[in-house]
């Protein structure tokens, strides 16, 4: 396993060009092209803002301006959720490569997560516009933590993606289970509501949700005034994510030989 892991940097060029292909191919043939990377999150934002500003404003007390608050959580979530959805099917749809070409299979989920990260980056300019528009209370030390949060999320997502992609080869039904689990997970994460509004019972559960800590970190850095108090959680999550990644890679490596026969 470790020997294979050490090979990973050698596939840099391959990953790069596959990510580029992924991005190019996605919006090829659509009129607005890569502007969809902006439009999609804006649409989501519009819908949730309408619901929580005008339909049920009580739930989001203390999260003003709401569009900015929600944006801090929804962008990382989109990256995470679409990475998992896509990586669960990525080995099967890339079956041709695995069966017919000598191809390092782990490249496929890595490409999926990376491509979705690029989409996340592409949507960041809108976030910047929002930050300036709403005069968000930003400080330099806090902003320096931002890349760290992104890095933790990347490793965490990668770990999940490796496990999911490997297991889905053997259990195709993971894909269907996953979409439901992700819906539940979305509402169990303080994205559309602030953490402090959750009842105490729920808070205890929220603390067990790793993604909640990522979202809270984003929100503390970009939205809430005051120092970044959540860093301890983030560091713990970072260590846990590395562990998850290694575990995911271990599972992937164990099942690797079965891919060419099962996909």
């Amino acid at each position, binding site marked *: 396993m470790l020997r294979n892991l050490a090979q990973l940097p050698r596939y840099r*060029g*391959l990953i790069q*060009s*596959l990510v580029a*292909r992924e991005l*190019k*191919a996605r919006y*090829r*043939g659509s009129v607005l092209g890569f502007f969809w990377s902006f439009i999609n999150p804006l649409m989501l934002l519009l819908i949730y803002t309408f619901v929580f500003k005008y339909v049920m404003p009580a739930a989001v007390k203390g999260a003003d301006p709401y569009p900015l608050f929600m944006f801090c959580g929804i962008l990382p979530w989109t990256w995470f959720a679409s990475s998992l959805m896509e990586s669960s099917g990525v080995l099967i749809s*890339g079956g*041709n*490569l*695995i*069966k*017919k*070409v*000598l*191809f390092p299979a782990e490249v496929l989920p890595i490409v999926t997560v990376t491509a979705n990260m690029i989409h996340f980056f592409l949507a960041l300019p809108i976030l910047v516009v929002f930050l300036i528009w709403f005069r968000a209370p930003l400080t330099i030390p806090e902003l320096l933590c931002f890349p760290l949060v992104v890095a933790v999320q990347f490793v965490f997502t990668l770990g999940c993606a490796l496990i999911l992609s490997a*297991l889905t080869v*053997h*259990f195709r*039904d*993971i894909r269907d*289970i996953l979409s439901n689990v992700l819906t539940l997970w979305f509402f169990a994460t303080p994205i559309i509501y602030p953490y402090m509004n959750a009842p105490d019972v729920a808070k205890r559960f929220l603390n067990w949700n790793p993604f909640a800590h990522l979202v809270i970190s984003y929100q503390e850095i970009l939205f809430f005034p005051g120092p970044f108090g959540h860093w301890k959680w983030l560091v713990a999550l970072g260590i846990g994510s590395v562990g998850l990644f290694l575990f995911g890679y271990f599972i992937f490596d164990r099942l690797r*030989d*079965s891919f*060419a*026969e099962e996909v």
Partner: protein
Amino acid sequence: MTPAIEVSRVSKIYRRYSHRKQFATLKSALLSRSLVRNLRPDETFTALNDVTLTVPAGRTLGVIGRNGSGKSTLLKLVAGITKPTTGTVKVNGRVSALIELGAGFHPEISGRENVFINGIMLGLSKREITRRFDEIVEFAEMKEFIDAPVKTYSSGMYMRLGFAVAIHVDPDVLLVDEVLAVGDEGFTHKCLDKFAEFKRRGKTILLVTHSLNLVQRFCDEALWLDAGRVRGSGDPQRIVGAYITDVEASEEQHLAAADARAQESAAGSIVSPAEPASTRLPDNPVATTPAPTDMFRAAEGRWGSREVEITEVQLLGADGQPAHVFRSGDRLDVRIRLRAPLPVVDFVMGIGIFNAEGVCCYGTNTSLEDLTGESLSGDAEAVFSIEALDLVEGTYKLDVGVHKADGYPYDYHRLLYTFRVKSQTKDVGIYRPRHAWTFGGGISFRKAAGPQP
């Protein structure tokens, strides 16, 4: 010198899961703690069984064998795509596998971008591809389409581009799996030229193919796989010869079995359902199948009054033994056994040879050859001898019949006997006249290195 490919005592066992497993969910697997057990196979299939082979660097090995004999599995093992269940595979040098051309092309993006990505997948660096790009496009004959998305390509274009990329990887070991069927004649020649160039440059080639001709012409050595085992290896002429003999033997068996079935069903007095019983001739009370109105359109079957019965028809080879596969130019004897319970005086025997398209290649009968029946009673035997079966390769069927001079059928066997004619020369038509080429003046030919007919 170290060998380029070393396969020692390799077996590959594929797992076949039972039906149940396919529908098992993760949840049920977890609940019954059977995750590990479910990943274990219920049934296995041995694709390769204790295969050992060595290819010295710079040699070309042709792998032949029937469908399902494990050829492609062997290639995938050498390519490293799958791992052997037992045994070891060692390959020295960069490998390029032409197993599926254009695997990994993305339909939405242009041919140009796909060439780059495919090249990187096959182990080239960006700079190497840039340097070879024009050559690749030139080779694939795709100049004007290279910037169009791959989904707009025809399947031939797709294959050509895939082939061009794979061949320009500049491997030390080239693995080829039956991919020469891509593109037109011209492109196939180009591919062969490219292979020849590889050979000249001392590269190792492992070629899996059904084209025996190619193996004989092109390979230094041949390996014959049969049901996952090595049946023979060594000199291509010898191995291909042995393989052809084996294929003929099993075809012989198939035809013999088919023959037996056809005769059985014909003898079983089957009345063709298309013709109602009332259309039977009243003066033909023991007819099994009514005589068709148009003889030349009739399907296979058997009909007649059975006043004379054809009890057995056998095809015999030059050695006098029953045979179903012949080489063009071989001797063929058709032995017909007859029985007439009551003596008859008015009878004609006929025979017809039809090819697979139903074209009558030859037909004759005793009356046409000025033989007039005198007497026939009890058991009798007739042999129709063809000195040299000068037919082109193909499957042929025989008609054998006994009837009155006016056509009233005693026993007519329509297309019930099948035989195959094999030929190394792929000439066309029906009949191969005995022929020779002679030349004079300023014209000369060189004998191809390939097999002689």
